[in-house]
């Protein structure tokens, strides 16, 4: 089966939201963690294997007043970094 462009959050990773709307993503399998800003939190919550990165970027641009034009590029980079660390996978094509 081929991978799609629809990212899916690793279900074992825990999102720990903090007081300032930033959050820690913690992988209990590896004890690795990354901190993310509110935009990253919003992206994380949308990585359900149904939305493409483009869909997510469009939703983010509608939700955040100050989202820059380069939002898609930055979100794609964010997802890629998470994927490199095993925090995110890409949904497989269904038959």
């Amino acid at each position, binding site marked *: 089966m081929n991978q799609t462009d629809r990212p899916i959050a690793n279900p074992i990773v825990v999102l*720990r939201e903090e007081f300032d709307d930033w959050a*820690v993503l913690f992988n209990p399998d590896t*004890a690795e963690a990354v901190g993310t800003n509110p935009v990253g939190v919003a992206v994380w919550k949308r990585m359900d294997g149904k939305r493409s990165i483009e869909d997510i970027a469009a939703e983010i641009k509608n939700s955040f007043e100050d989202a820059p034009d380069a939002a898609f590029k930055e979100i794609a980079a964010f997802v890629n970094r998470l994927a490199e660390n095993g925090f995110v996978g890409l949904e497989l094509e269904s038959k």
Partner: protein
Amino acid sequence: MSILSDMKQRKTGQAGMRTINTLYFYLTEGCNLACRHCWMGPRFDATGNHYPTLPVELFETAIREAKPLGLSGVKLTGGEPLLHPHFTRLLEIVRREELKLTIETNGLLCTPEIAAEIAKSPNRFVSVSIDGTDAATHEWVRGVPGAFEAARQAVRSLVAAGTRPQIIFTVMRSNAGQVDAMVRMAEEQGAASLKFNVVQPTARGEKLHENQETLNIGDLIELGRHVEQELAPKTKLKIFFHYPHAFRALHRIASGDGCSACGIFGILGVIASGHYALCGIGEQVPDLIFGAVGKARLEEVWRENAILKALREGLPERLEGVCGRCLMKGRCLGACIAQNYYSKGSLWAPYWFCEQAEEAGLFPTSRLGTRPTQSPLITIGNAASE
């Protein structure tokens, strides 16, 4: 738009050889103040004539041997660095060697002429300690009448000469109520930044803790949040509260505010007796002295000293207690190895602040996490028959 703040930034590659970024020169064994919270505990010396100061030749030797190892800057501290009888000569050497200059001073001897000498260094950073917004508060901490006005005058002289200093304010029970007013005073004085320090339980600071003249852990955490979240957004000053990474807001860490990380991989101390040491802690803990400047070759000390090697190989993974379980350990590195060693006699001991916070149920749970222990393999066979 920065999205990620990687918490394991320093996790890998630490066993390799590091460069010496900065030599910390603790220039004098004496000090012209008698601060209640001092973590070095120098003896009182109003004129700088009574106790050893680092010979200029050893200052030059250490720099000469450190430059091939990557040296890019020096910090001049004490005791009180301006008490050094050849302070302006040291400044000339720093300029000649094109090093970044950092000075930590109480300001008493910072005349307009000295401020002008300091300003000749193109890459410089100066901090002046002021622990209150009035003379009575500051001088209760510092132990010498007139110290308050002298420190304020030092800030004015530095600003006039073109160096906007950082003011360092150490919080304790007697001055905690002046934190907000201190921000205004620092603005009025023309400071570039204001840093709030926590009293370390080392040397005289330990006595201050024992006498309960410091804030308790809950009050410290609360004050840190007040400074970061309520005061910082309202001022153009850069302001910092010097507590461990685990307590700092992620957006502050992501913005590049590097306070509260132990610089252990890139610094080495040189104390007034002419010895290399982990840092100024060598004045208090002989175990952390690594050899005499000019006799021991610095390259050998830096590469081969057993403690430095152990730290490079062991940090952050060997940290114990709450520091071992903290997600920020790769950045924080145990906050202050010297303090931890002083308190517990171990390089891997947890930092007192974090340990107390955990005991009080105040350590942020979102910053904790450990890898689950692997289950041992199950032995298959009949043990009874063996």
